[in-house]
């Protein structure tokens, strides 16, 4: 089966550096490179077109010799739901690179690709991510789907966005010097790049004018109707709310193809047990529910999330695990709610990166610390110095500030560690995909031609073979156990083997429904009363999420 030999590439595999952010074309080249190097192991397909003509690219990775991808339990991960949260893509690609290069070398990686599948959408919001690299941008923009919304409701959409006034390829900030007494800011006496708000009894001589831009449409407002604003992480189908409840929402759930392509594909890939969606910023491992008014997660699934989330906190120092609305804010119709609530997968959103510049360790980054980081750890790479500009509305202003690839995305030397630790969190989820093992059955010959068989089925890992939400929302069929080679007269689930308590199935005993599946690190013992001759019968366990397993039982 080649399970212990390393995976040798057909052609030299991509060998990217992880201290940088890659534009879409390079990510795609990388994806195709892996597919070419490991042809049967890595498949690339488009799940459909996106809003501005891109593709939802999916990579599927598994050992082809141990079964087809869709028949194995799977981890799904994605990056760049928010286009500006750029490095989620690099984390997914690091993970891909790591598992392919370490198959056959590291036993846990080998086990993963042998028994499971990795699905990856590295660039979900692909069109806006492209724009972030190729057009003037900020750390926060562009973020949303490439769809025009008339933000200021004047009948024209996207007519007054940010402008790169000084033509340096960056959208930074504007400030203006005014006569003393007309402003609320002054220059920091120690560093004139920094602005300090004046105290209550002090005169200011600067005003801050916000993000770089002009009043393009002459309506007396600046930058009030920018590119976008449909938030792809408010657009999913579970717990969705319209725009008057939360801004950034769409006209209806999954209105746009970026998410719909994935949701429709996932309906036919119920073997996905774990979902990780990489965002930034703030170092969080978030689970659902996304909003306070939503129903709390049931206990069984919460225990699984809690275990993985708290283990994740150990692998990712500084990261905090919890539900979205408690750690951040209410969000309706977000990724984890949908992939958990509609597809039955254990789901996390990871908010990558946090403050890098907290020199004094007070959990707070002052603008002085931020500037010190810029000056001394990046030698001034991050900050664009203030520069005079003649503004059509504001007159003489200065334009300057932090570049778009700073602060929210880590500096290269920090991104390497960020990628690695998060990839290891993905592999932790992968390790805990349900893993079935049939233990030694107990066979009792009741009389000639009639056997009572107790088959203990163990799930050796943390994630249940069927999440409780699957039953709660009736998402797909339950696990089913059958016997071939004999006629099943009665069957049931053994609730107490010592006191002979069996929960019998009333109808169709030959097709035993294991309602609720097998929880993590536990065993369900299944009872069959079989009419058969001495010899062997085959026990089959078929789980939508955990895959199939068979075992031969000898009847004396």
């Amino acid at each position, binding site marked *: 089966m080649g399970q212990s030999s390393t995976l040798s590439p057909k052609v030299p595999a991509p060998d990217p550096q992880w201290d940088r952010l890659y534009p879409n074309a390079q990510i795609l080249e990388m994806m195709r490179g892996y597919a070419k190097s490991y042809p049967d192991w890595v498949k690339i397909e488009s799940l459909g077109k996106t809003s501005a003509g891109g593709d939802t690219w999916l990579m599927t990775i598994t050992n082809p010799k141990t079964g087809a991808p869709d028949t194995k339990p799977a981890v799904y991960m994605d990056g760049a739901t928010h286009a500006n949260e750029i490095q989620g893509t690099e984390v997914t690609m690091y993970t891909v690179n790591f598992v392919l290069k370490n198959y056959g070398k590291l036993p846990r990686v080998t086990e993963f690709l042998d028994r499971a599948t990795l699905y990856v959408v590295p660039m979900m919001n692909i069109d806006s991510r492209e724009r972030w690299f190729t057009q003037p941008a900020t750390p926060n923009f562009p973020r949303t789907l490439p769809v025009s919304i008339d933000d200021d409701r004047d009948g024209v959409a996207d007519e007054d966005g940010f402008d790169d006034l000084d033509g340096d390829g960056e959208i930074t900030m504007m400030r203006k010097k005014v006569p003393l007494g007309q402003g609320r800011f002054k220059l920091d006496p120690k560093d004139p790049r920094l602005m300090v708000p004046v105290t209550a009894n002090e005169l200011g001589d600067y005003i801050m004018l916000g993000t770089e831009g002009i009043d393009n449409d002459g309506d007396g407002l600046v930058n009030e109707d920018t590119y976008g604003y449909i938030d792809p992480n408010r657009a999913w189908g579970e717990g969705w709310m*319209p725009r008057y409840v939360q801004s950034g929402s769409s006209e209806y759930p999954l209105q746009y193809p970026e998410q719909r392509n994935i949701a429709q594909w996932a309906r036919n890939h119920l073997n996905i047990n774990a979902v990780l969606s990489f965002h930034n910023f703030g170092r969080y491992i978030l689970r659902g529910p996304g909003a306070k008014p939503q129903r709390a997660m049931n206990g069984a699934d919460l225990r699984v999330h809690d275990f993985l989330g708290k283990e994740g906190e150990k692998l990712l120092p500084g990261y905090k695990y919890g539900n979205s609305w408690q750690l951040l804010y209410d969000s309706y119709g977000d990724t984890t709610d949908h992939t958990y609530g509609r597809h039955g997968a254990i789901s996390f959103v990871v908010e990558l990166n946090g403050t890098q510049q907290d020199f004094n360790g007070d959990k707070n980054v002052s603008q002085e610390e931020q500037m010190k980081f810029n000056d001394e750890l990046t030698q001034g790479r991050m900050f664009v110095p203030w520069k005079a500009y003649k503004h059509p509305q504001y007159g003489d202003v200065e334009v300057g500030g932090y570049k778009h690839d700073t602060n929210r995305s880590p500096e290269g030397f920090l991104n390497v560690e960020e990628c690695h630790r998060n990839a290891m969190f993905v592999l932790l989820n992968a390790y805990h995909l349900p893993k079935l093992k049939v233990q030694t059955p107990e066979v009792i010959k009741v009389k000639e031609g009639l056997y009572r068989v107790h088959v203990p089925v163990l799930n050796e890992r943390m994630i249940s073979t069927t999440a409780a939400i699957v039953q709660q929302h009736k998402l797909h069929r339950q696990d089913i156990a059958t016997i071939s080679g004999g006629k099943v007269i009665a069957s049931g689930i053994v609730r107490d083997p010592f006191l002979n308590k069996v929960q019998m199935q009333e109808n169709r005993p030959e097709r035993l429904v294991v309602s609720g599946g097998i929880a993590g690190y536990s065993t369900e013992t299944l009872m069959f009363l079989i009419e058969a001759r001495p010899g062997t019968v085959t026990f089959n366990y078929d789980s939508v999420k955990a895959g199939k397993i068979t075992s031969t039982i000898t009847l004396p």
Partner: protein
Amino acid sequence: MRRADPLKGEKGKFKLMAEGIDDDKDGLYNEDPAGGYRPDRNFAHAWNEADPESGPWPSAQPESRAIMDFLVKHRNVAMAVVFGPANNLLEMPRGSAGRSGDIGSMKVTVPRNIANFTGLEANKEYTVDEVYEVLKDSPVARAQGGLTKEAVVQLLGGGPARSGGQSAPGGLQNWLYYQYSTMAIELDVWGIPKKAAAKAPAGAAGDALTLDKFEKMSAAEVAALDDEKLGAFLKNINAPAMASAAMIKQGVASGRMTPAQMAGMIRSQGGGGAARPAAAAAGGGPTTPDEDTIAFIDASAKDGIVAWTPVTLPDGTKAEVGGVDPFLAVAPNESELKKAADVHADALIFMAGKLAEVAIADVQVKALGSGVYEVSATAANNGFLPTATRLQVRTRSYLPARLTITLPSGASLVQGNNRSSNERITGSGGTTKATWMVNAAPGSRITVSILTQNAGEDRREVVLQ
């Protein structure tokens, strides 16, 4: 078939299910039929995740998406009519939270017998609120611990001619109103009419009290009545639940009502065994929808009801197959349909005539000197309906009504914005107004426009002088 009532000591003897067999032998009948989702359960408002026919998530189905995609691109839609299973005119939509709509502004007339004891004028038109104000402190209401507006409508002999139902959770009407936020109404076109009331049986026999006897009693005679006898009488005449023996006695003793007035009131509410049969009499009382259906199909369609026939299912279960042809209960015959279609076509034309319609009503120019002019423009909504529903003001799904000024080159505004927005201009002459100060050469032509998405547009050119 009727549900067994344990309070009457009954036990269920039948199971009732749609015709079919347990094909997969799992103990469930017809649990996985052909087909998947109902488009009218798949829209995003109040989507019901527990409904197996609501779809894998709201808006998942191509049918529902196609309608929504078209509508979001056509914001000129000012009103939507859904011909679906519910009738919002017969039953007020309760909304997703199940709250009842306010029927206070509904117009009603007061029959003479009720006018007699309320001081209202007979056959004059009132709103439900007005009648409610008069009745809410009456002994009837006090005895009941309060009166609802719905009870007032019933008291006046109103209430729907047949049941209307509610728009479905995840239904199109709900999405249209709550999310797309246009005026939306769902009409079912036709439904089984209420069964005609049976002729009243003879009044209760013997010396039992009857309404006719009660009507002629004096206040003292009523006061002397045995509570038990009075209670039995009230029950027998199918009096409203609010009418207790104590309440009747108190009402008469206080002089607020004579027995005759009370009898009139009871009759007006359908009690008394005259207008409707007493509950105690066989076949009496208000009819159930099932009874209505059977009565209608019996009368209108030959072979519309299949007699119960014994069958033996493949697993040996004995059953009977029969019942109402389900299609006849939801679809009218040709002549009924023609009538319904005519009524609905007329109603649509009537409603369309009530849509909001904006126009520039007035533009005033005042020369302030030195080429500065004050321009005041007023736009009016000459239609009956407002330009936006209250909900639309909140959802902001449509653009506001915008009053704008267009200047020739060389002219400028002394201050501010060329646009004034108003989320809602009320109907029947509601207005919105804007004033601009313009710096322009005398004789310049400016244009004032009122722009809306679903109530039209209008422009007027004015010379500054």
